[in-house]
């Protein structure tokens, strides 16, 4: 019994020692491969030696702590679909002077429209975005409205119209310009651009107090400059930009 007991003891001991050695080496290697990192000016005073022990204890405990859930929500994130195989055109307001459109036209819809036209004409017809100003057209009928054409590449799927006017109603159509005229494929819902100045409409029951109407010009003012007094908060607690709203350090 005694030899086997000693034999057992030595086995346990050697296993324990091996495990301890492995842990120690793992820690040392971890420590060695860790760079010193960027060293910057200290906030004040020297770095007291006694804190190093606590620091090592903190790190050691962190490294030996079981790591839970190593995957993030965005590991292996699939890209968004390039197409939805749906016919869509949407017009969105950006500002009194800018509107934005995106669209998708399905191959099937293109074929359906194309078959009504001579193939040679269709294949060579340029792609066009036709922006209608339907403001003065109560029925919002594009056919009766002034328009502006933008020739685009077939691969383009969005566009900014940056020279539109405030308080106007617009519709955009995507189509192709055939010898016989414009053939629309998609027509958007109308949008109305915002006002960029006080309304000319006066309610006789509420006549404006004249001196209160010019507040924008007495302030840093007018809509184009409103950015000067909007929120300076750009993101949250993020070190990406050391030049802050009020600090110009670095």
């Amino acid at each position, binding site marked *: 019994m005694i030899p086997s007991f000693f034999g057992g003891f030595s086995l346990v001991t050697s296993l324990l020692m091996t495990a301890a050695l492995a842990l120690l080496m793992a820690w040392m290697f971890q420590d060695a491969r860790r760079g010193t990192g960027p060293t910057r000016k200290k*906030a004040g005073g020297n770095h007291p030696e006694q804190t190093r022990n606590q620091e090592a204890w903190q790190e050691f405990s962190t490294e030996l702590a079981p790591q839970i*859930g190593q995957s993030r*929500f965005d590991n292996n994130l699939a890209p968004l679909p390039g197409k939805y195989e749906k016919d869509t055109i949407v017009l969105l307001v950006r500002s009194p002077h800018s509107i934005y459109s995106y669209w998708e036209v399905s191959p099937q819809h293109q074929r359906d429209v194309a078959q009504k036209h001579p193939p040679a004409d269709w294949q060579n017809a340029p792609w066009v975005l036709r922006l209608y100003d339907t403001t003065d057209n109560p029925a919002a009928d594009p056919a009766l409205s002034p328009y502006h054409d933008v020739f685009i590449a077939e691969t383009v799927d969005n566009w900014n119209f940056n020279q539109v006017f405030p308080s106007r109603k617009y519709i955009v159509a995507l189509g192709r310009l055939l010898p016989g005229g414009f053939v629309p494929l998609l027509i958007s819902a109308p949008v109305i651009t915002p006002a960029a100045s006080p309304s000319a409409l006066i309610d006789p029951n509420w006549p404006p107090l004249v001196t*209160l109407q010019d*507040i*924008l010009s007495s302030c840093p003012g007018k809509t184009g400059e409103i950015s000067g007094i909007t929120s300076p908060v750009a993101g*949250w607690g993020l070190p990406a930009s050391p*030049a802050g709203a009020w600090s110009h350090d670095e």
Partner: protein
Amino acid sequence: MMSKGLIAFVLHAHLPFVRHPDKEDYLEERWLFEAITECYLPLLQVFEGWRQDRLPVTVTLTMSPTLLSMLADPLMQTRYSKFIADLTLLAELEIERTSGDPAFSGLAHLYRERFNNARQAFEEKYHRDLIKAFRELQQAGILEIIPCPATHGYLPLLRPQPTAVAAQIGVAVHTYQRYFGQKPPGIWLAECAYYPGLENILAKYDLGYFITDAHGILFATPRPRYGLYAPVMTPAGVAAFGRDLESSKQVWSNDEGYPGDGDYREYYRDIGYDLDFEYVRPFIHPDGIRLHTGFKYYRITHRKTKDKQPYVPAWAEAKAALHAGNFLFNRSHQVTYLNQIMGEREPLIICPYDAELFGHWWYEGPLFLNQVIRQQVQVDPGLQFTTPSRYLQKYPLIQPAIPCESSWGANGYHDVWLDGSNHWLYRHLHRAAKRMIRLSRDHTGAGGLTRRALNQMARELLLAQSSDWAFIIKTDTAVQYAVNRSVYHLNNCSLIYQMLTDQKPLNETVIAELEEYANLFPDLDYRIYSEPVPTQ
């Protein structure tokens, strides 16, 4: 009784939903923890001081449904508890480290005291339930709390699907009632973004008012009699209040705003960046990414200098008091001038700010706010603090008008949230909303797993619609995170859509995982996406 002029502070407290149960080391969760420590707890202390001293004051506070969901979440509470405990540990090390340096030693002690107080307040005073503390302040009349759209959706850009806009409002109102036990009196539109017709949806939920930027009112149709200094009433019976430009400029302006004063604490000098890597390593990100620890020892000194001087709290406190007096002095002159013109009606000055400005970006912000309220009687006893709903009670006759489409973002409209960097989002957001609406109409009486899947799809859609993602992408800060959050939630919408349209098997394990990950709005009912939306 007529006062000389009315001032309505509106503080907008919002953070996107950044709860990540899968790992503990998401930097983004620190946004909440930093805000609790630096903003919400200090503001609570200020508000409770007013209650204790029975000051005749009331301010409006927006609490976003995503923020409420995180504040109420046990996991986030537990993680905050660890966060603040770590800070108190770091405070002990900092006291040792700075013991020989008189310029910094006092600050280290100050931080220890503040972080210990924060920990004690969170754990022992509030028992981790900050919402209850805010609710009690509302019951005491100190606060008028309002929601914002469910996930801070930027409504003018969700407009192609009015039902999606209505869901943002409906879920917000429902969440508010869950936490505050009453109907919200009004709403804060995310980024003050308004479009004509939105008021019809707000009216459906009995919301009494919203806030626009100044030009939302000044460019209203017909032209407003009182300019910015009175609300207008939309045809739907929802009042619109405009942000005052002068008081905004005094706080927000990059060039002359109070927070840029040299005596205030410098945000961008933090020991997380300044000290030896090995020293701060246990307190930064496990991957060695340096971050803001909250220990900041310098004052702004001068905006353009790199040679920052040590922070002197007494100077900063004195400056906050001085600036508060200056703010009131300017309001006093403003309303004196306006009284000469308006006569028949008290001028109303609406002062909206991000709540997180107070304490986080502007460390002394809560002190400033406290001083504004407490010095008012001394500077001008004719001023009175009010809220939009109190104003509406006092002045039921409001000029009818339709505000101008607008936001408080740069340039005043929507181009921050729709530009070359983030425009790609919207075709996917609109498609996902269309699918949600279609499924809701197709499954009017769904039960069991199908119902759970539909409810979860609604949560994922709402989360994808957070205006924060487009904003972060535009401002080039945590871009990858914002892009990934958008793609992640949109992908989840597509996945559930495929499950519910027989393109993939409906998998309970997957739905359960998504429910655990995005666990906000537990009472959400997907059928909100098949409710009719009022157009008039």
